[in-house]
C-alpha cells in the first residue's frame, strides 16, 4: 500500500496514554528550549532524553523513516546553505579562529564553524524525534481538541486535523491516478528525460487537484449540514480529562525548561563557548 508518511500509529505506551493537550504543551516547551539555547551540553542532554522518550513510545524507526529521511535531506541543505552564506559565523560568535585548512577567499574551515554547525544540527535532532512523536502518538481526533484547548480557534484546529487526516486519502488517489495515466503510456520513471517528466507530472496533478477539490466540497457541505461553525465554542467527544500523569509530565517539562534556561543564560550568553 501507499507509504504512510505522517500519521497516527496505534500502540500501547505511556506516551500514548498522555492526553493530547499535555503532549502539545510539552512539545511547545521542548521546542522553545531547543530553539533558545545554543548550549551544547543542554542540547546533548535534550537529544539523549528525546531518544529515551522515543524508545518509551514503542514507535519503530522504520515507521517514520520516510519523513525522517525527508527532514535529514533538508537538514543537510540547511547546513550547506549556512556555510555558503556565512562561513565565518562560528568565528564571529565564539571570538576565536582555529583554522583547520583554507579553501579560497573567506571560505576556510575553522573548528568554531564546525562546532557552530554541529550545534545547529543538534538542535534539529532534539526537536525532530519529539515533533514526530507528537504526531505519531496523538490520535488525530484528539489533535484538534488539544489545539482548541490551548486557545487556538476550533475552526483552525479542525482545518489542521482534517488536513492531516486527508493525507492517506490523497496518497491513495495519487497512486490510482498515476497508475491509470501510466497505463496510457505516461512515463514517470527515470527512463524519461526530466523536462518531459515534469510535463507528464501535470497530467497526474490536475486530476488530483480536481478530485481533492471535489472532496473538500463534499466535506464542507457535510460539516455545515451538521452545524459546524454555529457557536463560538464547541465540545469534543474524544477530549480526555487530565490525569495525574499529565500533571506530573507537565511539571517535569516546565522544570526541564527552567533548568535549561538557567544553565544556558548563567554566563550571560546563549552560546556555550569551549574556546575561551
Amino acid at each position, binding site marked *: 500500500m501507499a507509504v504512510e508518511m505522517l500519521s497516527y500509529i496505534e500502540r500501547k505506551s505511556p506516551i500514548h496514554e498522555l492526553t493530547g493537550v499535555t503532549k502539545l504543551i510539552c512539545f511547545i516547551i521542548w521546542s522553545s528550549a531547543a530553539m533558545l539555547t545554543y548550549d551544547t551540553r543542554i542540547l546533548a542532554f535534550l537529544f539523549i532524553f528525546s531518544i529515551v522518550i522515543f524508545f518509551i513510545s514503542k514507535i519503530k524507526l522504520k515507521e517514520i523513516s520516510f519523513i525522517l529521511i525527508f527532514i535529514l535531506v533538508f537538514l543537510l541543505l540547511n547546513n550547506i546553505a549556512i556555510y555558503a552564506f556565512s562561513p565565518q559565523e562560528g568565528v564571529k560568535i565564539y571570538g576565536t579562529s582555529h583554522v583547520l585548512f583554507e579553501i579560497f577567499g573567506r571560505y576556510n574551515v575553522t573548528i568554531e564553524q564546525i562546532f557552530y554547525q554541529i550545534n545547529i544540527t543538534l538542535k534539529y535532532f532534539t526537536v525532530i524525534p519529539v515533533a514526530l512523536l507528537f504526531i505519531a502518538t496523538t490520535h488525530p481526533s484528539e489533535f484538534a481538541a488539544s489545539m482548541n484547548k490551548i486557545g487556538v480557534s476550533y475552526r483552525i484546529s479542525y482545518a489542521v486535523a482534517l488536513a492531516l487526516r486527508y493525507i492517506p486519502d490523497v496518497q491513495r488517489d495519487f497512486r490510482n491516478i498515476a497508475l491509470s495515466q501510466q497505463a496510457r503510456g505516461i512515463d514517470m520513471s527515470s527512463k524519461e528525460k526530466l523536462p518531459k517528466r515534469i510535463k507528464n507530472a501535470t497530467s497526474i496533478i490536475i486530476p488530483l487537484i480536481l478530485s481533492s477539490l471535489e472532496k473538500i466540497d463534499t466535506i464542507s457541505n457535510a460539516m455545515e449540514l451538521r452545524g459546524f461553525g454555529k457557536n463560538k465554542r464547541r*465540545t469534543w467527544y474524544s477530549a480526555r480529562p487530565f490525569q495525574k500523569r499529565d500533571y506530573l509530565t507537565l511539571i517535569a517539562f516546565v522544570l526541564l525548561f527552567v533548568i535549561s534556561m538557567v544553565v544556558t543564560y548563567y554566563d550571560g550568553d546563549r552560546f556555550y563557548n569551549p574556546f575561551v
Partner: protein
Amino acid sequence: MKKPVIEFHNYSFKYNSQVEPTLRDLNFTIYEGEKVLIVGPSGSGKSTIGHCINGLVPFSFKGEVTGSLKILGKEAKSLDIFSLSKMVGTVLQDPDGQFIGLTVGEDIAFALENDCTEQQTMHEIVDEVAKMVEMDGYLSSSIHHLSGGQKQRVSLAGVLVDKVEILLFDEPLANLDPATGKYAIELIERIQKETNTTVVIIEHRLEDVLHCPVDRIIVIDDGRVVADMSPDQLLASEYLEKSYIREPLYVKAAKYAGCEIMEEMKPAHPSTFALDGCRDQLLTWVEAVDIVPSSEKREPILELKDISFSYEPGRKTIHDVSFSIEKGEMVSIVGKNGAGKSTLSKIICGFEKLSSGQILFDGQDITHDTIKERSLRIGLVMQNPNHMISKNMIFDEVALGLVIRGVAEEEVKERVERTLKICGLYPFRNWPISALSFGQKKRVTIASILVLEPEVIILDEPTAGQDLRHYTEIMEFLVELNRQGKTIVMITHDMHLMLEYTPRAIVIEGGRKIADDSSAAILTDSGIIQQANLKETSLFELAKRLEIGEPRRFVERFIACDREVRNIWQ
C-alpha cells in the same frame, strides 16, 4: 388532516452558474409521518430539491429563489442552515466523503459537539443512537475499515442524534451492493417507525426502494413535478416510462406481455401484485420466445492461472484465482464491495504485482510485462472519470495517449476522430470537458482508452450513478464495440447489467472465485446469491408465481424484449 412539514409553493430556483432555472414552479406538500420517494432522471433537479430542503440551497449553493418553501411551517428563506439542520437530517450520497470524525463514535457525535453538549451526555446519546443502527460494537473503530453498508449506518446515526423531524436520504443506494441496499431500505423503514419521522428519499432505483412500502412517489423531470401519487397509481400510469425511469422489472414484463396494469392490482410489490387477470397473457408471451443461439467456443484471449496477491505480507487479498476470458466475449466480474474485484483488475493491468501465478494473453506469458507494455493490449477504464481526465479539451484528452507514444500528428487526428465518432462525441470534439455531464465524461474516458486500440477493455462500474437512459446509452455503446470484436470485462454489482448484457459472470468473494457460469444460472443459485451479497431479480419471483418451469427462459425473453424497446430511444 395531517400537519404539513414540507410545503413547496410556486417554488423556482436558478443556480447562479446556470442560465436556465433548475427547478420550475414546484407545488407539492409532504405531511407529517409520510415516507415520500422523489424520483427523476439524472439532471432532472431531484438532488436540487434535496438541497432546498436541507438548506444547502440557497445558503451554500447560491442562486435565485422565487416562490415559497415552508419547513415545519416556517419560511426556509428566513431561517439559516443551522436551524434547518435541527429540523432536517441529511444522509448524503457519497458514503466516504461525508465523514468528518475518524472513528465511528466521533463522527456520530459531530453535531452534538457543535451544540456544545457536555461530554457525559454526548457519550450517552451516541451509545443510544449507535444501538439503534446496530453499530454499538464499533464505536472506536476507524471509519475507513467499515463496509459500505456500515458507513451508511454511521452517517444515519450522525443525523439521528439531533432528534430531527425530517430525514432526507440523497441516493442512499448508490455505491451499495444489492443485498446491502436491501438492508439499507429495511433500516430506513425501521428507523422511521421507531422515531416517527417524516422520510424523504431521493433515488432513481425505484424497484429497490419499493422493497419497503412508500406512501407517495413524486416524479421530477426537467425541474417540474410530473406526477405525485401513490406507488400503485404511478406504476399503473405512463409517467415513469416518459421520464426514462426504470420501472420494476415484474411490472415491465407484464406490460410487454400486453397486460393492462391497474392501481387495484397493487403492483408496488412483487408479492402483492395481482396476477390473476394477466397470467395467460404472460404465459403466451413467454412461449413466443425465440431460442437464443448458444455461442460457439472461441479462443481464450486472457487467462489467469492461480493468481494470488497480498497488500501486506501474510494477508492474502486474492487467493488462487483462475479463469479464462475468450476473444470477443462480454463478461461480468461481480461480488460485494471489498471482495477483491478491483484488485483483480489492477493485477491484470499490472498496477499491482502478484505474489504467485501466471497471466497469459493470447497464449503469451505477460506476467512480467510492465504497465506500459500491457496497456497496448488491455485498457482499464476507472470508475471515477475525474481520476483520469487531465486535459481541458475533449480532443486533447483522447489524443493524450497517442501523443505520448509519439504517433505522427496526422495519424493521431485520424484515430482520435474515428474514436470520437464511435463514441458519439464527434460533435463535441472542440468542447471543454468541464461542459460535459458525468455520463459524457465517462464516455470520454472510454474513448481515451479505446483510441489506443487495446483488444481487451476492463471497465470498473461503467454505469454507476447513471439513470436508465444514460445507462442504456453506455451499455449499447459497449455492445457495439463488442460486436466490432473487442473483448469487454465489466466489474459491477448491478445485477441487471450482468443479466442483460453479459452472458457469463465470474463471482468473487473474499478474494476467491466462487462461481463462473452463465449470469442467469448464477442469479438463480441462492447459495451464491447469499454468499456474494447479490439479489435475486424480481423477474424470478414473478416467474415462480406464474409457475413457469424455466424461469431463465422468462428472464431471457424479458431482456430481449426490453432491449429492443429501449433501443428506440437512441
